[in-house]
């Protein structure tokens, strides 16, 4: 009816932006990079999985992504649990404090680690002052620095996702388990963890996808020593201008993220937070 | 909007019709919500659509209001074909189950919204808003936001908003279901009072038979998109047309006679006597065994097992008042009887 056509009309501008600003260009990366044929892109793609240099970068990206994901869950779930189950009036403030970094520029947050980990930074100077080392230890441009930086970046996401899930688990269930004789720890593992698992899956997906595609952190904290897919993609398309390589890297990154998201969506129920 | 042409007269009742359904069908995919329904809503009458969930009562109301268009058939309002008219052109007042008060407007703005759309001037509007709010006893809350009101107050505001536009028909979609039991009983009489003061035609949708019995002039019992019975509450209550209606109105005992006729008896009309010799003349008497006893304060419920006149084993329920709760115990044998005039003969479903 006319009602339906009105609603369809309302969709048109949005769809147009999606089509021009996202869908068509994204398809172009696969099939029509300037100065690179589809064959070029795909042979470069095959090369990425045979060349030791490329493989090391893929391995580092995935490996660091997994470490950061694990770290964010190990730190984020307890925070979310304490906040969701606390009756203290400070819980709200602490929750806001955990969410606030999400608003703050990644550049600003990552820059903080330069100050902390740099050769004249807090940790270096402190360890020299304590006589632990003679010269400042090399902390920057290591995988440790990247792990710290990415954990700082994505821990808030993990907390929010876990918090939403845990606060949906009725506190009455905790009481019921306790009443049946389960201790505090037992209740946590038998009731809280299984019921908030979908949130944990969402958190893991968000953190992993964020970590393997992050640019600012490996750029500032990894430098040229700790290259990752994102920094490689940038240098292919802006420094060496190798479109086939850029497209191939983009495809690897995208497939990685889509694969993990799809797996997670199947694993937990559907639904993401950000 | 509303028409001033004289309302036609409904064929059966002879009273003028406020609205009519003519062979109306509503399908959602494979599901038939309303099935070739004919219904006349009498002007100035309080009509109730009663039935379990899924019987098509709310769908019928929404079709009347114009929120869903019938798949087939016609809907007439004041004798005019309104089948394809959008809701804003129907001039009906609807009270929603969720109240649907605009959260960003005050109580007075909510009630005055329909008047503003009718371009009623500010002074007249304020007077009419106050009048509507006074009718529901909430004139003192005019400046409040709906969120700050209790459920019962929100309900009254919704009612005031619907009557402020002086609707052709006032439509009430389970308006009392979100209220607690005491408030619900109070609101029933209040809505009745407003109806008689204004002379409005009202259609109420409910699944609560007490509500329907207490409030309506005309009661329409529905099942699976069809009307099972329509009539004055007292008539429907004392003479349900079929087993579905009887069941829905609280008849608990169903017996088959030797001629194959189904009889229904209300639990309060089934009396128990200790021995066969106490059997009552001019009544149906059945030998029964007590299977369970439930004491309920004002009365005691006896669950009985008996053999009906056709020879079938049946479970019966009897409400006995003023008996010592300890008088009967499971296993006791007794006689259950009901006077002839309390036996209701049912037709087929």
């Amino acid at each position: 009816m006319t009602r339906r056509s009105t609603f369809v009309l309302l969709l048109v501008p949005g769809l147009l932006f999606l089509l021009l600003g996202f869908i068509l260009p994204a398809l172009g990366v696969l099939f029509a990079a300037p100065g690179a044929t589809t064959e070029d892109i795909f042979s470069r793609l095959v090369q990425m999985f045979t060349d030791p240099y490329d493989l090391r970068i893929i391995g580092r990206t995935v490996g660091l992504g997994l470490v950061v994901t694990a770290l964010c869950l190990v730190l984020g779930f307890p925070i979310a649990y304490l906040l969701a189950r606390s009756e203290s009036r400070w819980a709200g403030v602490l929750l806001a404090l955990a969410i606030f970094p999400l608003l703050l520029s990644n550049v600003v947050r990552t820059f903080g680690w330069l100050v902390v980990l740099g050769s004249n930074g807090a940790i270096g100077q402190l360890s020299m002052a304590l006589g632990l080392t003679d010269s400042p230890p090399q902390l920057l441009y290591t995988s440790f620095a990247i792990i710290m930086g990415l954990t700082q970046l994505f821990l808030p996401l993990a907390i929010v996702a876990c918090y939403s899930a845990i606060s949906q688990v009725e506190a009455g269930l905790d009481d019921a388990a306790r009443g049946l004789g389960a201790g505090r720890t037992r209740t946590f593992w038998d009731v809280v963890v299984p019921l908030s698992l979908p949130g944990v899956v969402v958190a893991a997906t968000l953190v992993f996808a964020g970590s393997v595609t992050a640019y600012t952190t490996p750029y500032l904290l990894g430098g040229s020593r700790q290259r990752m897919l994102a920094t490689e993609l940038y240098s292919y398309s802006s420094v060496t201008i190798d479109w086939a390589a850029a497209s191939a890297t983009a495809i690897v990154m995208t497939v990685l993220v889509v694969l993990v998201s799809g797996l997670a969506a199947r694993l937990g129920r559907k639904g993401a937070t950000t | 909007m509303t028409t001033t042409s004289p309302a036609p007269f409904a064929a059966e009742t002879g009273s003028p019709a406020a609205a009519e359904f003519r062979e109306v069908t509503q399908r959602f995919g494979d599901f038939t919500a309303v099935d070739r329904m004919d219904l006349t809503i009498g002007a100035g009458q309080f009509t109730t659509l009663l039935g379990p969930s899924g019987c098509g009562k709310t769908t019928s109301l929404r079709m009347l209001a114009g929120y869903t268009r019938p798949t087939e058939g016609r809907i007439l309002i004041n004798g005019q074909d309104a089948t394809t008219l959008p809701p804003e052109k129907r001039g009906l007042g609807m009270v929603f189950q969720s109240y649907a008060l605009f959260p960003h407007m005050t109580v007075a703005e909510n009630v005055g919204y329909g008047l503003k759309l009718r371009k009623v001037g500010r002074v007249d509007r304020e007077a009419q808003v106050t009048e509507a709010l006074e009718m529901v006893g909430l004139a003192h809350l005019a400046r409040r936001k709906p969120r700050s009101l209790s459920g019962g107050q929100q309900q009254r505001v919704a009612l005031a908003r619907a009557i402020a536009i002086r609707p052709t028909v006032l439509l009430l979609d389970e308006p009392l279901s979100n209220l607690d039991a005491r408030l619900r009983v109070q609101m029933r009489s209040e809505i009745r009072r407003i109806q008689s003061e204004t002379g409005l035609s009202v259609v109420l949708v409910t699944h609560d038979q007490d509500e329907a019995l207490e409030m309506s002039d005309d009661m329409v019992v529905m099942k699976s998109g069809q009307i099972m019975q329509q009539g004055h509450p007292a008539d429907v209550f004392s003479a349900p047309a079929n087993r579905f209606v009887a069941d829905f109105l609280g008849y608990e005992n169903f017996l088959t006679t030797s001629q194959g006729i189904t009889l229904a008896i209300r639990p309060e009309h089934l009396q128990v006597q200790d021995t066969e010799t106490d059997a009552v003349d001019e009544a149906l008497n059945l030998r029964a065994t007590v299977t369970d006893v439930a004491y309920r304060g004002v009365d005691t419920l006896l669950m009985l097992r008996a053999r009906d006149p056709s020879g079938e084993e049946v479970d019966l329920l009897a409400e006995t008042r003023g008996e010592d709760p300890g008088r009967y115990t499971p296993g006791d044998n007794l006689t259950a009887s009901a006077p002839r005039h309390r036996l209701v003969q049912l037709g087929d479903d």
Partner: protein
Amino acid sequence: MTSRKPIAASLAVLGYMIMIVPILFVVAAAFTSGSSLRFPPEGFSLQWFEAAAGHTPFRAALLTSLQLALLSTGLALAVGVPATLAIHRGKLPGKGFIEGLFLSPLIIPELVVGLALFQQLIVTYRIDNFPVLLLGHTALLLPYAVRVTGAALAGSDESLEEAARGLGASPMRTFFSVTLPVLRPGIFSAGLLGFITSFNNVPLSLLLQARDTRTLPISMLDYVQQSYDPMIAAVSTLILAGTVVIAIIAERTVGFTRIFGGINR
């Protein structure tokens, strides 16, 4: 809350330290009177704030970032809110698919979207940088606009609109007098979220920059690569202050945790 759960509590403390401590060090470094990022800071001064305020590339970049964030947020809302309305109220077939389409930019890495726009529009069609940036940022913000206003719409009672219609309001009138006011908090939330997302964005803007259209985060990255002085700390501290202001506005209006955490308490 910490006394009886020692393991959880110590993990929580560690987590908060990782999230917060580096930010505190940035602030401390910004007020140094020395010329390097040395710890502990050498004396107190505001010189690096003055330097940052006078640094022309930063001033230009700030202007670009603000323009881009405001325009893309406005555009995303202007096309996103009607789309949301169609998705949630239109009873259109394929509702799930359409919604998925609008959320799809969230799945593809932003860096890849940036590469796509760079290759296809700037390199191939030689379109100016700013319009491409704007197009990209708008597409990036659409999911936020559709999801956040969609949540507000899904959470509001559809019978509100029916009630307005029943009282005599046309569909248009219903939209402006009922739907839009009810959606206002959702639109406001989506706007704040969109502004912040666009303003802070690096990966999408990275490849789309030009010498004269460079966003603030990108020019900060460039600056760090060239020199290693506390001026970036000063800029960062200013951004932090601005972010705090936005957080306070959020808390005073719709609620901070509701907007940015999607948490209803």
